[in-house]
């Protein structure tokens, strides 16, 4: 683990969200240079029984352990990042992410994820999104479970 013991993760204030999806559009602009949002966005806003939910990577880092080629690493900022050039597109991280925060678009074989860049926060006119600093130890997950657990 790097010396930096904290990481910025996204926090969602559902009560402020108006469902405009500007956050997704901003994210897909970063990820794929398109404002189509949807499956090209690392953050997803889902309407559920009159309210909204956010689905996005929580920087737990479980995916680091499943990557066979070391394409996923936790940077000095604490953010878990996928190196597209090293990635061999196996989707192990997509399949193993417990919250489905690792995303895959049909556009390319390599997955992508939230890098806590804040583009979505800036794009949200309702201030429904916020980057908060948390301790890595509080969010960290490891893939290996005790036998039988």
């Amino acid at each position, binding site marked *: *683990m790097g010396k930096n013991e904290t990481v910025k993760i996204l926090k969602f204030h559902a009560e402020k969200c108006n469902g405009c999806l500007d956050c997704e559009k901003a994210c897909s602009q970063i990820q794929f240079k398109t404002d189509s949002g949807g499956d090209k966005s690392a953050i997803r806003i889902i309407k559920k029984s009159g309210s909204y939910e956010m689905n996005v990577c929580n920087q737990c*880092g479980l995916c*680091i*352990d*499943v*990557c*066979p*080629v*070391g394409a996923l*690493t*936790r940077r000095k900022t604490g953010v878990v990042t996928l190196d597209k050039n*090293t*990635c*061999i*597109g*196996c*989707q*192990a991280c*997509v*399949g*193993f992410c417990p919250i489905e925060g690792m995303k*895959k678009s*049909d556009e390319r*074989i*390599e997955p992508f994820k939230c890098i806590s860049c804040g583009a979505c926060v800036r794009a949200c006119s309702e201030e429904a999104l916020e980057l908060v600093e948390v301790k890595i130890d509080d969010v*960290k997950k*490891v*893939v*290996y*479970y005790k*036998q*039988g*657990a």
Partner: protein
Amino acid sequence: MTEGQILIEEYETGNTKHEWNFKKLKSSHKILAEYKYKREEIQRGYANRTLYVNLDTGEIKEKKVTEDMKKKFTGGRGFGLKLLWDSIKPTTRWDSEENELIITTGPLCGVTQYPGSGKSLCVTISPSTDIICDSNVGGFFGPYLKFAGFDAIEIQGKAKEDVVIVVDGEKGKISIETAPKEETNSHLISEQLTYMYASEENDKSRQKISVVSAGTAAENSYWGCLNFSFYDIRRKVPRLKQAGRGGLGTVLRDKKIKAIVAKVEKFDGVANNPADPATLAKLGTKLHKEIRDLDRYQCNMRSVGTVHLVEIMDEYDLLPTENYRFGSFPKASKIYSPEFYKLFTKIIPDGCWHGCTMACAKTVDGFTVMTGPYKGQKVTVDGPEYETVGCGANMSLWDPLWILEFNFYCDTYGLDTISTGTAIAFYMEMYEYGILNKERCDGLELCFGNAKAALELIHRIARGDQGEFTKIAGKGVRRVKDWLIKKKWGDKQLINDCGMESKGLEYSEYVTKESLAMQGGYGLTLKGPQHDEAWLIFMDMVNNAIPTFGDKAEALHYFPMWRTWFGLNGLCKLPWNDIEPANNAETDDPSKVPEHVQNYVEYQNAVTGWNVDKEELILQSERCYNWQRSMNVWLGRGRRKDDWIPYRSMGPVTEVEYNSRKERYDKQLVEKLGHEEDEIEEMDIKKKMEILYDYRQNQYQKLADAVYYRRGWTPNGIPTPQKMKQLGMDDPKMLKMLQEKIDEDEKAGLNKWSGKYGKEEEPPSNDPHYWEKWD
């Protein structure tokens, strides 16, 4: 013993480090032949050419893969069979100049999205069996061979001195180079060559190299395996997976090949240029999720690999102990999977190809070697797998550390753990009966449980010791049986009944006495008694789901065909049924895992752009399966007599065995053979064993009748030309040969069913020439 989120650069195995002088090693290489080729993209899973290397003449050339070849042979093992058919003669034996060692890939090989997609299929004429042996193996070589530009490599002839063959996909160059100074044993040479041929001095570059090698014991025995390396960026060691069965490593060393190296410049998740990458990613992700959610409740492969089977087999009386005399043992819990879990290094991922989240390739790092040339050194032991632990049980070794020692040396010396363990277990039983003794074993006290003696025998084989026993022991059970009988040291029938081989190949590690279908699964096979064709014990014995001969024959048609399919495509079988969808038990046919079969249909279509269905997958296999059997016939084998199995795999050979399961056998004499209970109680054990012997032998012949009929073969086990034509395999030379062999059998009176049928029973067809009507 570290768990989770280890920085790749910080992980330490604690292994002994080696200092090599690579300049010196490389400068002693002399280039014997070189061939430059144009690199081309893979098209929908196929490189569309194979590589031919002749070590005798130095000829290196490309062969085109035709559409007809794809249609008939699909790829992988199928291509291997086709290339072998074009190159050898019916008189070819394992050490003939023209025998070939072929390593193939398959159209789905190298896909990273779907677990278990990195297998190579190796084909040759086996020293153990004199017929074709196919052996599948993980590691990076197969995918890299394809990404370098070839669907297969075919090596003919023998070199005059030790060589390495380098397939350099970075430079587009094949070379044959002398390699006088490299180590031979696999854990060392794979490290040397990985470092030597990596373009840069970093782990990323090393991960783009794969080395095929076999150690020194492969030179002196028929059990030589091929070690395929895959560089582990976390452990920083080239790890090893084995093409174990049938002596392929023996052929490698007979050709004086020290190693084959494959190297790629780069590859990505669509290096196969699949027709539909989006579907591939969806299929793969679905299976990753299944494994994530269900593996821990099913096979626990991610924790302990195939070793999870040890306790299950012990519980069901299927774990071979003391040369298959028993199926369970009071000490067995000492080698249950939790004991190995304590030793395994718990870091992920452990797939032998990228993207395999079954991750069953477990290791023990920093293992301190206890005997032999590497005594005191700390090494990474790849495995053990279930089979290797089963060998421990078979030799009555109940200490995990000795099983690791056995595993390590078998691997690095290039020995198949299965053949080695099964054979030594047989020698140990012969030792117990006094048929062998210390003197006859070159001074070794080779009794059950003597791990040191077992290891010493392996070291002697690796050193090429010239003791009479050592020399013959390494040639396996069949040769030792003949030797013991020739020496008149014991009863011929006892020796033949106890030695667990069929076709010359040693059995793998399951007790089949109570499952007739599984006896067929071992005996009515192409290459010999290996569980890769069918594993029917639970279906047959535990669930009684295939009670009739017809049911068993259907299972011995479907499952061998289905399992063959993986080898045509470059796939591992484990992700098919060692993980099952949560609702699998509620489907029509749980033993087939229907949802996963459908995955494979969609998977093959997504890569190749074909539009096949599940029936076509079986047909793909049936073509190659029948072709291989036909080639065995051509080589003078492949008949009913060659499908013989030893009685130890059918029933109790000795009184000790009968008495250990007396209740079971007595009950069968009453229920299945109609004897009265009182009669059985009074009956002499020898008499009871005789009755059981005759009954079970006849059951096996009746099963063979039913299976041959279901497969469209003659009653003597020859694929009929009519069947071949139905499958679209119309090679005139092959069809003519088959008809000639059938005519020979006809003259010899062999075209008739061999089971003895009772009053209310019938052979599978009243017409023993039933196939002639198909014209």
